[in-house]
């Protein structure tokens, strides 16, 4: 039995190696280390993008997408290594310690002047995270009704300009360094509501914030600048064309949509903000 499974493994390995050889030409010599694809994620990497802060397990949307892209680029699973970076490390000038960086980076024109982004691998709706006690006070899912709330957001995200454009709160929003601090402020009743990308908001409402509710969403096609996530690379990265080719292939074949369906829950039930 054991030898049989060994044989199966060997066949699988040689198959994936053969598969890899077919695609590998593009990325050859363009990675930090020959034959190894170094991917960066956040520290910690958050659910549902990466489960249990363990991207190696391939569990979670971004972890799964990363391995799918790696495969299309001709890297087998064991040729992928992970490193961790903060946002600031990813955009600092000088040599990078990753081939591409994947942690829900929104593609924007301004950022594109400093770093390279791949084609988008996910387009996110934005969503309003709040608590049941705020909802009970009687707010409606309209920008008008939510203007009077005290708003919070993660300062490092594109939620900040989005908040000012779409909701235009009456009092200045409070901004925090990370998700944890935003939810701490919500728990302390210092803010009423916060704007996140939808998958993050669903997770925080379900698991982190006591009495948390995802009250409304702004679908990507409604926003002026929809929130599209791309892989971040060094400006002028030679790898960009290979990554883009891999993402195009995944998108066209429907594999990307399948991964999305597997790891990101549908947000039916969340009303659309008018």
């Amino acid at each position: 039995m054991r030898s049989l499974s060994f044989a199966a493994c060997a066949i699988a390995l040689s198959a994936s190696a053969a598969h890899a050889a077919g695609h590998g030409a593009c990325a050859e010599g363009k990675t930090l280390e020959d034959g190894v694809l170094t991917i960066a994620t956040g520290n910690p990497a958050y659910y549902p993008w990466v489960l249990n802060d363990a991207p190696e397990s391939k569990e979670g949307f971004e972890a799964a997408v990363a391995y799918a892209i790696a495969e299309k680029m001709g890297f087998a699973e064991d040729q992928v290594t992970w490193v961790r970076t903060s946002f600031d490390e990813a955009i600092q000038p000088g040599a990078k310690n990753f081939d591409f960086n994947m942690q829900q980076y929104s593609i924007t024109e301004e950022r594109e002047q400093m770093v390279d982004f791949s084609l988008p691998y996910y387009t996110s709706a934005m969503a309003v995270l709040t608590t049941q006690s705020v909802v009970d006070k009687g707010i409606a899912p309209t920008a008008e009704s939510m203007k009077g709330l005290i708003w919070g957001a993660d300062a490092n995200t594109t939620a900040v300009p989005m908040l000012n454009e779409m909701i235009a709160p009456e009092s200045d929003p409070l901004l925090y360094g990370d998700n944890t601090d935003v939810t701490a402020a919500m728990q302390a009743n210092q803010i009423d509501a916060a704007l996140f990308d939808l998958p993050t908001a669903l997770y925080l409402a379900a698991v982190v914030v006591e009495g948390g509710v995802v009250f409304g969403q702004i679908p990507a096609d409604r926003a002026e600048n929809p929130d599209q996530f791309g892989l971040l690379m060094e400006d002028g990265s030679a790898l960009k064309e290979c990554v883009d080719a891999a993402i195009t292939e995944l998108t066209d074949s429907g594999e990307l949509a399948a991964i999305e369906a597997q790891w990101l829950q549908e947000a039916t039930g969340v009303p659309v903000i008018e």
Partner: protein
Amino acid sequence: MRQRSIRIAAGSTLAVLLAIILLVPLAPGWAAVKRSFFNAEVFAQTFPGLLNAFLLDVMIFAWCAPAIALLGLAIALCRDVRAPALFPLRLFGAVYTDVFRGLPVILVIYLIGFGIPGLGLPRPWNSPYIWGTVALVLTYSAYVAEVLRSGIESIHASQRNAAICLGLSERDTMRFVILPQAIRNVVPANMNLFIALQKDVALLSFIGPVEIFRQAGVYKSLFANFTPYVGAALIFLAITIPATRYADYLMNRQRQRRT
């Protein structure tokens, strides 16, 4: 002789400056560093917003400074009480300064800024502005108290004895004899603390208020560029350098008076 040393000083300063100006751009990464730290376009777009956000820093400083001075004085007096019955006050003063000087400011801000409002205070009493201010005041008054105490202890015991001989009460001795001299002695040291406070006000951004440091962080994130931090640094320097010079001037004047 004096002219010659001035010439040499000017020459060596110029040489160092030239070396920096000529050599730094030769570094291979200079173009990239310049683009992400000294980007004129980003600077122009973000500087007005940073200036605006700096107003909040000034406001926080303005209401913290008097509170710190008062609480610092109270703690220093606690540590100086001599009546045996009031020993608990003395003990409180010692424990207070030990604890708040021993903790990083940011930790106190987090604990008080999120912790106390988390107890369920109603609005507006759970505002991060209030509790952030409390955290800064608690921490800095511990430092100011120690500085004031050193000032009080620097006044020779004969002053106290003389005041008692004149028939002043212990309270009046402190108020009219010791404190006026003590406070004057430690003005420069306190100036340094207030310069440090000007910068630490930015730590309040960790619990929500969008002051200059946070605003610079937002711009950094939107532009993927560190230039806004440089802009913020310039604004801080524009305030702290004159303040530092003024503290130096006070210190010099005091030294000259003593000699």
